[in-house]
């Protein structure tokens, strides 16, 4: 860095540096490091409400993964997280990539479209969830109203009440909310590609599809790495949209249940009736945490290998 700099090495100087670094480090230790380390420890104890009981080893983990009452719920929810991840990879990130390519060419009105696509991103998930819940209302929501006025009555459905469409509706609401984010990250990635590369490909007579597939997609690999990793983490932490739109139980009949809802129900579910189990909740959080860390690192390493230096 700036190695040649002359700096006084007095006690006064060291106190000044300590004054700068100790408060932030202390803050992080208390409110991040300590809770995360405790989260692992808590999973090995029995809990009665808010009071920690005796050490029970891996009993909580066994219950979460193989227990008769808990495991089917957990695996059912896990599957829905995987569905959401795959669907959002295609719709949200894939859609964002295509929109970014259209914006990259700076067509007429692109400034407007760039601002418009990001409007839902700044809104709270709670607002987005309630808005779409009202729009998808079977009787008075604008989705069914629009279908009726177009004479497509047979397509109208109780979208959130029907087991076959509820999860899809949540995924689409999420994609509406966030598609602007991958769009603008990909756009920034495309703008960093040296124009000569695309020019050269054009001179070689590549068509639009080949250009996208063989030139642009490989060259925006760094953006893909970040976006796919963020989506992976987000999909397994999915909570707000399902909570607002279908409720804590993932109705109808658990067809929209996700791990975030299971965790909340287990840990904080019913505080008034004191149906809360911090031991099982901590075990589930720990497993989810390890799963995310392991797979997100693998995903990142695998995606990084695709990145090309230019």
């Amino acid at each position: 860095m700036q190695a040649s700099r002359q700096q006084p090495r007095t006690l006064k100087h060291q106190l000044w540096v300590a004054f700068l670094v100790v408060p932030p480090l202390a803050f992080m230790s208390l409110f991040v490091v300590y809770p995360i380390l405790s989260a692992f420890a808590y999973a090995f104890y029995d809990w009665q409400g808010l009071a920690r009981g005796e050490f029970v080893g891996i009993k909580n983990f066994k219950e979460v993964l193989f227990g008769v009452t808990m495991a089917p719920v957990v695996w059912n929810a896990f599957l829905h997280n995987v569905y959401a991840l795959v669907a959002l990879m295609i719709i949200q990130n894939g859609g964002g990539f295509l929109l970014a390519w259209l914006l990259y060419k700076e067509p007429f009105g692109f400034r407007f479209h760039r601002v418009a696509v990001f409007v839902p991103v700044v809104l709270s998930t709670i607002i987005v969830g309630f808005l779409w819940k009202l729009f998808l209302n079977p009787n008075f929501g604008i989705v069914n109203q629009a279908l009726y006025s177009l004479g497509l009555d047979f397509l109208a459905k109780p979208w959130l009440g029907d087991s076959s469409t509820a999860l899809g509706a949540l995924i689409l609401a999420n994609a509406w909310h966030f598609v602007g984010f991958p769009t603008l990250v990909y756009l920034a990635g495309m703008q960093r590609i040296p124009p000569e590369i695309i020019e050269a490909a054009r001179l070689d007579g590549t068509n639009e599809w080949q250009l996208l597939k063989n030139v642009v997609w490989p060259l925006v690999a760094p953006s893909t790495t970040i976006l796919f990793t963020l989506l992976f983490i987000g999909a397994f932490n999915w909570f707000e949209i399902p909570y607002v739109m279908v409720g804590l139980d993932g109705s109808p009949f658990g067809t929209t249940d996700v791990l975030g809802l299971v965790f909340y129900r287990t840990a904080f579910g019913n505080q008034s009736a004191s149906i809360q189990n911090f031991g099982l909740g901590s075990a589930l959080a720990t497993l989810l945490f390890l799963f995310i860390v392991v797979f997100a690192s693998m995903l990142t390493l695998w995606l990084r290998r695709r990145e090309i230096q230019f």
Partner: protein
Amino acid sequence: MTAITSDTPATRQPISFALLAQVILIANSFIMLYPVLVMVLSAFKTTGEIFEHPFALPDFTQVQNFTKVLGETAMPTYFINSILVTGTSIILILVLGTMAGYAVARYESRTNTFILLFFLAGLMLPLKLAVIPLFILLRDLGLLDSRWSLIVTYTAIGLPSAVFIMAGFLRTLPAELEDAARIDGASEPRIMWSVMLPLARPPMAIAAIQNAVPIWNDFFFPLVFIQTDARKTLPQGLTTFMGEYTTDWGMLFAGLTIAAAPITLLYIALSRQFIQGMTAGAVK
């Protein structure tokens, strides 16, 4: 104009492609904006009008839904709480982030790598999954069900990114700046405050926006930490409000519109800074 744009290679393409691109972009912007527009328009209607004519333009002089939301519900309280929590968190994030970032960027020390690794770990770990121990810690500190429970949590989540943004920027400032001040006899705190920090406003704005939007919009931590209605923030208060007025759709849309208005208007006014700030973590 045409001569200039045809120089960029990507724009050279058949007309049919350009037309298709326009159609897709216009359709997409319509899908992005129309739901927001319907929300605002419905807020001016009575519930009956929403059910009868969902797509019609309202009579914009009918503002009773808005006056009712602002006058008869707890929405203004939620709003003030959101401002207090977001504002205090951002100030703490900027102060603590600048302190650590400045020390790492401007003073050589063997501990710098350790400090950066420490914050890097904080950047990677989702604190959401440690919410149970955090809940117990806040209870032991007597902060549960207070606005401070949210402020310390948000500061802890936002601090690592602020440290990296500040350190990354402060590192690029030339050493001559502080050396000159040092020769003039300025103390280290004075150099930091009067020479270096006035130059560091742009990264502070980025760090502020990057953190302010998710903090303003967060729902999960208030849901777990806050019980008392008078301390709820806007997203959490909105769920209470939506539960109270389930059948009065005019009120529901007015509540949603009022909750969405501040950040949407701010975004429209400062869209460049918002986009830059919110994608800062993913764009290098």
